[in-house]
Every structure is written in C-alpha cells, then in structure tokens.
C-alpha cells in the first residue's frame, strides 16, 4: 500500500448510474487484478473503496456505481480534480492459478475487476470465457471491452431484455474450464460457488473502516481462521470460504 495524489483524467457515465473514472499518477503499487483503491473525498470522513478495473502505464481505471452520497459526489468530479488515494490494497486474484481455461463470472459492479484479470490471463495465453450478469439491458457495460481482449463473452440479464434470460450461472453449461474467478453480489457468489465444480476464487465486499487491515471492521470467518476482507481479501479461495448462516 501507499498513499498518492492522483489526477482525474476522465469521469464518464457508462449507464444511468455506473461511471468510469480514469486516474493518473504513480500507480506502480497496484500489482494484481482484484486489488482495490481507497479514495478520500471532500466532505466525507471515510474513504471509498473501489476495485481496480484496469491499469495502463501511469493510469488506473475504476468503475463505480452511484449508491450513496459519496459516490454521488464522485460522479460530479471533473477532469483535473486531484484525489488523495490509498492504492495497492488487498489481495487480488491469483493469475497463475487458472490452468489453461479460465471462467470469469461477474455481476453488476462486480464486473470491473475481472477486466484486468481477463487481460492478464489472455496475455498469458489462457483461454478465457467471460460471463456477465446484469439486471436489465440498460445496465449492461463493458461487453465490447471484454470482446476486444479476445475473450468469449456471454451476457445474461435477469429480465431477459438482453442476452440470455437469467443469471451468470445459466451461461456456461457447455464451457470447459479449469478454474473460475468471480466477483459480484453475495447471492451470486454463493450460486457460483454451488454451481462450479472446479476450484476457484471469489471476491467479496464488506463495509470497511480503514481498508488496510488496521480496524478489523470487515472481518470474516474462514476455514483457515479469521480474515480481513480488506487485507487478506477481498479475493478468497473457494476452499477457505465459510458462508454466513
């Protein structure tokens, strides 16, 4: 982890309430896909943790959904704004764990961290299938960006207004995969956990205090002991997960 001032170079809506922000500066501390950054916003006491969608040279892309007052404020930030950001937080996805064929499953704003992961896996010569789930057609984003990487991309919407009707778990019946990676709302993670037979990694979300392991606000129980979502997570191995009752 380190603390940097990053400059906003782009902040545009992808859907009615999902935004893409590009931040420029020394982002060398971001090492693996699935890590997150924690952004200080004027007028808000706690930082906002947002997963990294992509890193190219000295820029980071993040994609965030407006869900409350902090993200509402983020959406108003203009190009040139400077943000105090803690970067390189958390344990990301194990890019080398996938075997030859990786299945990536993302739901809603759980999709973004899979983008950098897909990029790394494809660069490493892996075959990548990406299944994206959204509620409805208007909420779909990044389908073409994943296609441009060379991934086999499939989309599901809950209401059937775009792609396959249903959930990400309806999209990979005929896919051979050696390993899976997933990020999305917890019911989706649980469905993926129960459906996928291979080993895999799941990225979790929790309300955080600090985002770097000091306050113990985002603890969870795992097979291998108590873990902090922000420090040992957000990515957990399938084999270590204990679902809350």
């Amino acid at each position: 982890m380190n603390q940097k001032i990053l400059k906003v170079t782009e902040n545009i809506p992808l859907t009615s309430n999902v935004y893409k922000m590009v931040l420029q500066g020394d982002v060398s501390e971001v090492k693996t896909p699935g890590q997150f950054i924690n952004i200080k916003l004027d007028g808000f006491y706690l930082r906002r943790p947002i997963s990294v969608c992509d890193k190219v040279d000295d820029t980071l892309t993040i994609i965030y959904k407006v869900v409350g007052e902090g993200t509402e404020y983020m959406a108003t930030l203009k190009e040139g704004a400077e943000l105090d950001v803690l970067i390189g937080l958390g344990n990301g996805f194990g890019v080398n764990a996938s075997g030859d064929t990786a299945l990536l499953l993302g739901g809603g704003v759980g999709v973004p961290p899979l983008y950098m992961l897909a990029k790394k896996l494809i660069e490493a010569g892996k075959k990548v299938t990406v299944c994206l789930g959204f509620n409805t057609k208007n909420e779909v984003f990044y389908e073409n960006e994943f296609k441009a990487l060379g991934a086999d991309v499939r989309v599901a919407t809950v209401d059937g207004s775009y792609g396959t009707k249903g959930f990400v778990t309806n999209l990979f019946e005929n896919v051979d995969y050696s390993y899976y990676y997933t990020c999305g709302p917890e019911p989706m993670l649980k469905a993926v956990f129960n459906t996928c037979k291979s080993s895999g990694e799941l990225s979790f979300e929790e309300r955080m205090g600090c985002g770097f392991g000091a306050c113990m606000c985002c603890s969870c129980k795992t097979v291998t002991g108590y873990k902090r979502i922000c420090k040992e997570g957000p990515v957990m191995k399938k084999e270590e997960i204990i679902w809350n009752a």
Partner: protein
Amino acid sequence: MERLKVNLCGIDIDNPIIPASGTFGFGYEFADIYDINKLGTFSFKGTTKDPRFGNPTPRAAECTAGIINSVGLQNPGVDKVISEELPKLAKVFNKKVMANIGGFSVEEYAYVAEKIAQCEQVGWLEINISCPNVHGGGMAMGADPKMAAAVTSAVRKVTDKPVIIKLSPNVTDIVSIAKACEDSGADGISLINTLLGMRINLKTKKPIIANKMGGFSGPAVFPVALRMVYQVASNVKIPVVGLGGVSRAEDVIEMMLAGATAVQVGAANLIDPCACSDIIDKLPEVMDKYGINKLSDIIGGAL
C-alpha cells in the same frame, strides 16, 4: 527532539503521540508505511484472555466527521498475542509498547495483565474498562466507581509496571470514576473511549451496524473529549492521557493544555495511515507559532 519529550508514568517518551488501541493493530500494517519507532509509543489492539472473533458485520458506519465502529474486541487472545504478535512487533518497533487489555470480569483483567506485564516489550498496561461494544464487561466495568476500583486494585496487585485505566465517556460523573481508579492504585487515566452512537440506513430503514449501536469517534468528538480530560485532570494527581478526535498537531496542544501528559490518536490513523507521523512532524512548527518551547511546559496550562 528534546522539545517534544514527556514522561508518562515514569517512562520517558520521545514525543507524546500514541496511536490509540484498535486503530493501529499490532503496529506492523503501519510499519510498511513509515518507521513507527518515530512514535512516543502505541497502544496495541485490545487483548482478552480468550481469542475473540468479535461482533457480526457490518461493524462500521460513517458519520459527519467521524466513524461508528462495533468490532467487539476481536483479538487472538493473550497467549497468541504473546507468542506471535509481540515477536512480530519486535522486528519493527524497538520501544516500549502500551498493552491494552479488555475483559469480562475482575479476574480476567488480572489474569491477562499478569501475563502481559511479564513481556519485556511492554512498558505500560492500559486497562480498557470502557468498551461499548461488548456485553457483560467493557463499559459496564467503567460505569461504576466501585467496579472501576475493583479492576484497578486487581491489576495493581499483579504488576509493578505503570497501570493506566481507560475510561468511558458514557457515564454521568467521569471525575468520580477517575478518582476511584486513582485511589485504587492507578498510575494514570486515559480518556475518552468512544461515545455510544448509531446510524440508520435510509434505504433499508434499519441500523447500519449489525450490533445496532457502536462507538463513535473522530474529529466530531474532540470537544467532548477535551472537556472530560480537563475535568479529570483538574481532579486527579496522576497523569492523564487525552484522546478522542485528535487529528492535528493543534489538537495535541489543546489536549495538553487541558491537562494531558500524552495524547492518543485513534480514528485519524484509519483515514490517513500517516496521521501520527504527520502530527509529530508538524508539532515543532505549531509550537513555534504559539510560542511554546517545550511540550512538557504546557501540560495542564489551561487548568
């Protein structure tokens, strides 16, 4: 720097800045960011007899100028703290550390204190009788002068190291509790622990914190903390450690003028991991601005 030195309960410290328990883990997360030997000392994560997972999540809620937490004394238990955490800490911190101890009975406090006091690294024991996030112990102990006295006496019997009792602001008469601790052999008083608070999620119409209520800290509580430090320092002879919302060098000076010998910094560490380091760097400049030569000269200056 001589100007920043103070003596806390018989131990000289390079400066009065002490990260507060529960906001600094066992130090090493922060040692990745700066050399934590720069600190006066720090108070490590509240330690109990048995390992504790703590409360269900969500455990954190944002407030205007503050945070509510309900961690519930998550810690690996005293044996693992001694066998695993303290050796790890020794690699990155070569000063005496303040051992923060939580408990659910007088006997438990004494048991943990006796074990931890034997560790050479431990300089002070800070006895938390003020945790708002656990039942049957914590704050219940700190709300009654008789119970506060009983815990203090029991801990006093098991160690010669300085014993600092950490008090809750969620009481009607803070002075009577502080005096009860002083009369029972405490070497110092630290205050304030968090104020009991809550937030409700407007979307779900339910409390944000799983445990419904939690401890409120951050810059918003500073005036309350300062007032209570002033009241206690006016009425006891033992050193007072001031905490509650301290985020700037100016706040440190205010706390010391109100009677604090040393100052703990809590929530600020969670927002700016370098908060304590920055405060230490900034102190000389702010002291110059207000004509302060040595910090030890101003302790209780406003009393």
